[in-house]
């Protein structure tokens, strides 16, 4: 099949940064083409160039052999190129149906609405999606919202669908669903550019993989000619994956105890429902559960973003449920959605300034009321080096960092607080493999120093590798604990679906 899309020698610079240096690759009809690269390699920038959001400094894009120059996403859409963005462009109060209509070029009038409805329905049935056209968008899970974005593009007959880290916000079940839909689309002759940091997914669905490194496309490999190791070594090159070792924690001292905690969500339902948990000193306590069973609420109530409607959080013997002391005792790190304005960073401020957001009043960074700029810079240089954060020129706003690098800024900041308790909510989502390993190492090292971690993740491998104990959640309640060295994926799976109890306490 001839190449449908060719990208040749693309270069895109930002002041002080060469985001793309010389990138070439091609996409044929009916293939799933994966872009792989470290955080900051230039994947998102390349996709923004391809969809006309950025104008390349050099290089050309050809579709069916014809040179094109996109000046806006509308241009690329009309050439059949559509992108599912990570922050969805949906109107929360409107229904699914209305949101899809809004995205169409010639908005249908009253009379042919039925026809459109039927067409959308047909798409939903065809792919076996579970989507109610009349429910308002705000009621839907993130996975379901992603379906809407996909349907929008399909309604416009896009020939090339771009998905930038779609699975970073999906549960493994939702991701599997997405992959089967992508396979069907491929069968229909559509092309897909897929971005992910999860090797297993890349192996599972890619027909070809192009590896980006520091703004260069360094290799394109066909299915069959790559395996996880080869991809990883190409992507990371000579850089080493940090080594670490998990030491078993023996302490029986309880540093945090959650008793009968209940939290309501915006819709008035219980996210946590008399939830109990005991955290021992220096342990890594993994939390397993199908996403949407209260993990996020747990992290939010512990880090003070939500308040409990019932129950207590005890630090040693002190009740800190509603106290400010909680902030000093518990730190939190979390996956950063591509929507950069989320909590966690001040997007217009520099990396240096963001790194001290929690400790700016410390003696280390201030004298009396004055900031110690030298100390702040020194701290930043240290953290940037440690966590291999790829930044722009000194002083440029955090907003311009790549998704993974923003996340590293937050992780570096929260861990430098040396908290007694760390709550990590999907901390390695969106991080490249080297960085994910480094975060694991930091958490394990922290445990050796006596920091206790509540690690919320959905990747069972990650949990099994890192945890001293695993607590399983189901419908906002604790099902029980298991010993990771002494359990099976099946046992945890059964507990996650609420069918089996674990050991108490």
């Amino acid at each position: 099949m001839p190449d449908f899309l060719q990208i040749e020698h693309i270069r895109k610079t930002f002041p002080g940064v060469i985001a793309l240096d010389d990138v070439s690759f091609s996409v044929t009809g009916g293939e799933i083409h994966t872009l792989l690269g470290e955080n900051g390699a230039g994947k998102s920038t390349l996709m923004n160039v391809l969809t006309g959001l950025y104008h390349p400094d050099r290089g050309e894009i050809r579709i069916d052999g014809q040179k094109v120059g996109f000046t806006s996403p509308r241009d690329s859409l009309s050439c059949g190129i559509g992108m599912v963005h990570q922050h969805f462009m949906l109107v929360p109060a409107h229904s699914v149906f209305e949101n899809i209509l809004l995205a169409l070029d010639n908005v249908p009038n009253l009379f042919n609405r039925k026809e459109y409805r039927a067409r959308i329905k047909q798409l939903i049935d065809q792919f076996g999606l579970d989507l109610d056209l009349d429910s308002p968008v705000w009621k839907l899970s993130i996975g379901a919202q992603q379906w809407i974005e996909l349907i929008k593009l399909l309604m416009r007959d896009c020939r090339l669908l771009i998905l930038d880290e779609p699975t970073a916000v999906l549960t493994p079940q939702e991701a599997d669903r997405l992959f089967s839909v992508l396979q069907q689309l491929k069968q229909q002759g559509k092309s897909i550019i897929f971005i992910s940091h999860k090797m297993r997914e890349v192996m599972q669905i890619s027909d070809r993989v192009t590896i980006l490194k520091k703004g260069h496309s360094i290799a394109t490999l066909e299915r069959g000619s790559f395996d996880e190791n080869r991809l990883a070594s190409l992507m990371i090159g000579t850089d080493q994956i940090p080594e670490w070792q998990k030491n078993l924690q023996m302490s029986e001292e309880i540093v945090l105890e959650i008793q009968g905690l209940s939290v309501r969500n915006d819709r008035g339902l219980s996210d946590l429902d008399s939830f109990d948990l005991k955290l021992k000193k220096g342990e890594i306590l993994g939390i397993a559960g199908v996403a949407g069973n209260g993990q996020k609420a747990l992290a939010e109530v512990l880090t003070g973003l939500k308040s409990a409607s019932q129950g207590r959080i005890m630090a040693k013997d002190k009740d800190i449920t509603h106290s400010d002391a909680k902030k000093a005792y518990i730190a939190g790190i979390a996956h950063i959605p591509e929507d950069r304005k989320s909590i966690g960073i001040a997007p217009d401020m520099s990396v240096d300034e963001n790194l001290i957001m929690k400790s700016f009043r410390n003696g280390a960074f201030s004298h009396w009321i004055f900031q110690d700029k030298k100390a702040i810079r020194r701290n930043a240089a240290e953290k940037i080096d440690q966590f291999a954060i790829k930044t722009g020129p000194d002083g440029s706003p955090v907003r311009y960092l790549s998704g993974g690098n923003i996340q590293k800024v937050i992780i570096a900041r929260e861990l430098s607080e040396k908290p007694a308790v760390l709550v990590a909510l999907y901390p390695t989502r969106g991080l490249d493999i080297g960085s994910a390993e480094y975060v694991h190492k930091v958490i394990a090292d922290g445990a050796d120093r006596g920091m206790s971690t509540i690690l919320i993740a959905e990747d069972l491998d990650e949990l099994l590798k890192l945890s001293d104990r695993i607590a399983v959640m189901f419908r906002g309640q604790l099902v029980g604990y298991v010993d990771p060295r002494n359990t099976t994926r099946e046992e945890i799976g059964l507990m996650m679906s609420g069918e089996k109890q674990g050991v108490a306490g």
Partner: protein
Amino acid sequence: MKLITERREISSRLLRFSAPIVSIAIALFVAGFLLLASGVNPLEAYREIIIESLGSIYGLSETLVKTTPLIFAGLGVSLAFRMQIWNIGAEGQIYMGALGASGVALFSGIGNHWLMMGAMFGAAFLCGGLWAGVAGFLRARWKVNEVIVTLLMNYIAILWVDYLVYGPWKDPKGFNFPLTAQFSDTARLAEYFNTRLHSGFFLAIFCALVLYLFMERTVWGYEIKVIGSNPKAAQYAGMHTGAAIFFVLFLSGAIAGIAGFSEVAGLQHRLQHGISPGYGYTAIIIAWLAKRSAIGVVIVSFLMGILLVGGDSLQLLWQLPVAFVYAFQGLILFFLLASDFFIQYRVKLVKGGRHA
């Protein structure tokens, strides 16, 4: 061919400095036609503006006199802007500051000059601060929109001053004009070079420096910037955003209030009807153009001062209507704001729409 605009990721330093200059040049060019239409040689008029406002000790001093209240009010407004708080009420805060300072000057009976200055300054600071603080409190406590509150309170402040100068505080020997008695010498700021230039100007420069250090070097300035950038992140990091909103609006109003002190103590030596011809509103534009930077406020205020003084002279010399002066000032502002657009966005001529 197609014109597109693209947001500049980081605007270059050179551009940031050159764009305002170019835009002023364009504005002068366009305004030239207006002048020609009224039968005035534009080059001569511009020469006149420069000479009148900068060409002599007297002219320069008058320009600085006009610059002074603009700096104070501009600093106040720009401080709040830093936190994404929109203080539209600098005008009212100037009036309240003037009212507070005048009250002390007229009725405190303090004999010592420095004590008197301190007390008048303090009163203006407090009155302006509390006036804006009301909006800060309402915003922090009940999320009441500060734009509306600060704006409406302008009218209240102006009417308060009018009430006093037409009523209880009116100078009995003032032939029924709406003004208070003259302040005694203890209640006057020093004047220089036999002109109207008073120490309020140096106080304004000093204020700008302090505010610059405050924003760029202190932990409070840092906190304000974080809250302005992302209130949610600030809250997460343990900052008390509500208290900060009140504090910043208070300080913003207090600095604008100092303008009132400087006007009555340095220039007018009494409280009277219409003590500010809209400095508080001009301050909003100044803060905007200055990109919220304290040093920028000083520079832009000075430019505005030239416009005000030069505009007056056009009126006198060629009997141009006052409307012309406003139109002239409006044009310059218009082009300055437009240049702002070109600093932030790049306009490109791109070949071809889709298929080239």
